[in-house]
């Protein structure tokens, strides 16, 4: 049991995985000497050397494409994409190659590649540095997509992702990198299990990554108004741990999904559709979604109004309770 920031917890998890298995490599832009622009790989280059912590040329498609080649040779590469908005040049390698290669080979090949992506807004960044693109990858068969929200999960989930024989998109909530938390020695959940952070009887909030803290704050605020609100940290976006959500919804009959990505074709839609199908008669209100509007992430000056905040979540809870 130790206390770390979320960023340092990922660093520690990477170090542990590299120590445990020398087939684990880290590659990306500025991950070596600099330790990454968020310092998540700090010290790894000094400790494991330039063969295992590779400062690459500036080409995302090649980062993922060469990681595929490395994986085919038996390595377990962990790629860093510097910011969410820079993963798209690698989209073809991720979607057509990384995701599909196992199925294409008839199940012969395995591709244990992790792609780490600092994700989301809230740090006052310029354009392309605050995107939430989990829906693209969740809609892509062959990938696993996970999202950590706190130091403990960060430490364990990065290792679980590296241990997975399947490709994993690993989201890191960049505005939470500096938040501290205690880290247990052993993981309490599997990589693809949701975590129930708070029980409640009136309504359930489902969130992941950066909006988990928002959901918790909203639940606390709602309590002051006399409502008992449960919070579930989805943790895994693909596959979704629907049974955990469903069990909570069966008690409350109400569910609000909170995420930073656009609601249109986003995570909230999938959760809403699936939960509604499975809990049709238990639902007292439609599943509501709180997320981004259908516009590109706006300039930093207005991001506080754009990001789902406690007020918007409370408003959704109210609307749900009003049904």
């Amino acid at each position: 049991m130790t206390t770390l920031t979320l960023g340092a917890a990922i660093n520690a998890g990477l170090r542990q995985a590299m120590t445990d298995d020398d087939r684990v490599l880290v590659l990306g832009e500025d991950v070596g000497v600099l330790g990454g622009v968020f310092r998540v790989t700090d010290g790894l280059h000094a400790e494991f050397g330039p063969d295992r912590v590779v400062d690459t040329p500036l080409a995302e498609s090649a980062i993922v494409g060469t990681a595929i080649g490395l994986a085919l040779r038996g390595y377990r590469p962990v790629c860093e994409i510097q910011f969410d908005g820079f993963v798209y040049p690698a989209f073809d390698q991720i979607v057509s190659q990384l995701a599909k290669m196992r199925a294409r080979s008839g199940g012969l090949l395995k591709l244990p590649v992790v792609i780490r992506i600092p994700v989301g807004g809230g740090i006052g960044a310029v354009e392309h540095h605050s995107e939430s693109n989990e829906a693209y990858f969740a809609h892509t068969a062959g990938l696993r997509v996970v999202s950590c929200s706190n130091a403990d999960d960060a430490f364990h989930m990065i290792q679980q992702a590296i241990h997975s024989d399947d490709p994993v998109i690993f989201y890191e909530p960049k505005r939470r990198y500096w938040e501290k938390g205690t880290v247990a020695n052993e993981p309490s959940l599997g990589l693809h299990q949701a975590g129930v952070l708070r029980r409640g009887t009136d309504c359930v909030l489902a969130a992941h990554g950066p909006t988990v803290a928002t959901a918790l704050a909203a639940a606390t605020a709602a309590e002051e108004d006399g409502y008992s609100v449960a919070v579930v940290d989805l943790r895994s976006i693909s596959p979704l741990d629907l049974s955990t959500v469903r069990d909570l919804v069966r008690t409350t009959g109400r569910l609000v999904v909170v995420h930073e990505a656009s609601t249109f074709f986003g995570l909230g839609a999938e959760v809403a559709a699936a939960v509604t199908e499975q809990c049709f008669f238990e639902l007292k209100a439609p599943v509501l979604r709180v997320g981004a509007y259908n516009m590109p992430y706006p300039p930093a000056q207005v991001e506080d109004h754009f990001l789902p905040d406690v007020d918007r979540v409370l408003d959704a809870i109210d609307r749900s309770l009003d049904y």
Partner: protein
Amino acid sequence: MHMAPAETPAAAAWGRLLDRQVEDLAMVQFVTPDGALTPAGEEYGVDVDLAQRLHRDMVLARRLDTEALALQRQGELNLWLMSWGQEAAQVGSIRALRQTDMVFPSYREHAAALCRGIAPAELMAQWRGIRHAGWDPSVSRFHIYSLVLGTQTLHATGYAMGAAMERSDEVVAVYFGDGSSSQGDVNEALNWSAAGTLPVLFFCQNNQWAISTPTTTQMRTPLHRRATGFGLDAYHVDGNDVLAVHAVTDVAARRIRAGSGPGLIEAQTYRFGGHSSSDDPQRYRTQADFDLWMGRDPLVRLERLLRTLGVEDDWFKELQEESDAFAVDVRSACKALAGSDLCDLFGNVYAEAHPVLAGEREQHMAFLAALESQGEA
């Protein structure tokens, strides 16, 4: 090559900046289309035994192609892309590598695949719609075909990063076409492998067409020149001359094994057939072009040389018989190819348990069962 700029004092003074254009490499050729040795070929010498083996590889590869196209026309294959005309480029190059050298093909490398021991049935499975890839790359050290153009060049580069890290003397070979060289991925691979001094051998079959698009639309300079610009060792070879391809690949591979970094071979060739069995090349290229290249057939030229060098008629007859027997096998192997059930495919997507997919599989099985019981009712 360039239009003259308006002549100003500045332009006059600094025009010389541009004088140092790269010269294009002369194309290496050992055997002329009519089967005679060139001076270079004389100098290098002919290993007749090797030449016979290469000839056999080419003859069988061509036979597979002919049979497969016929099978496509009969509806036994959904599609077929012939390597017809490119046998020398493929056979000459792959036979100059070690069996342990990993190869990343594109999708037209049937001749190369056969050399790696991949069975015709394994090759045809993909085009009959049975499987996406028919063979196990860990056995043949020949990766599955990549249909998204150029993507495999980066996989080869990554694979070679591993080889370099392990101080292995492997060469990692990757095949791609002239058209594919316009893709960002291919250029990233050229650059990345050069910057990292990686043991990659890029082998471009410049068959002059990307479906209907001629090489002149794709690029201004020949590809081997571009490769030199990136810092690769570049070679330009007559791709219809199997002996020259073999020799140049041998040189390139040796240099790469010795640690000099990546190389690129541009093999000048031509596809005799359409882009695929769905394509009608007469829509975009001339009969004269086709006839010209027919006169440069890689098999004809080697057969002429071999006969000149004293290989007897009997040997060619035996090869013909082998080829006929092979054709029978190809046809029956194709027709015997039956696939798996959709239900089996759910398990191929992920290496580890996946509840969503498991649920969908159950759903699908239930649906099938319901359908069946309805059918019975």
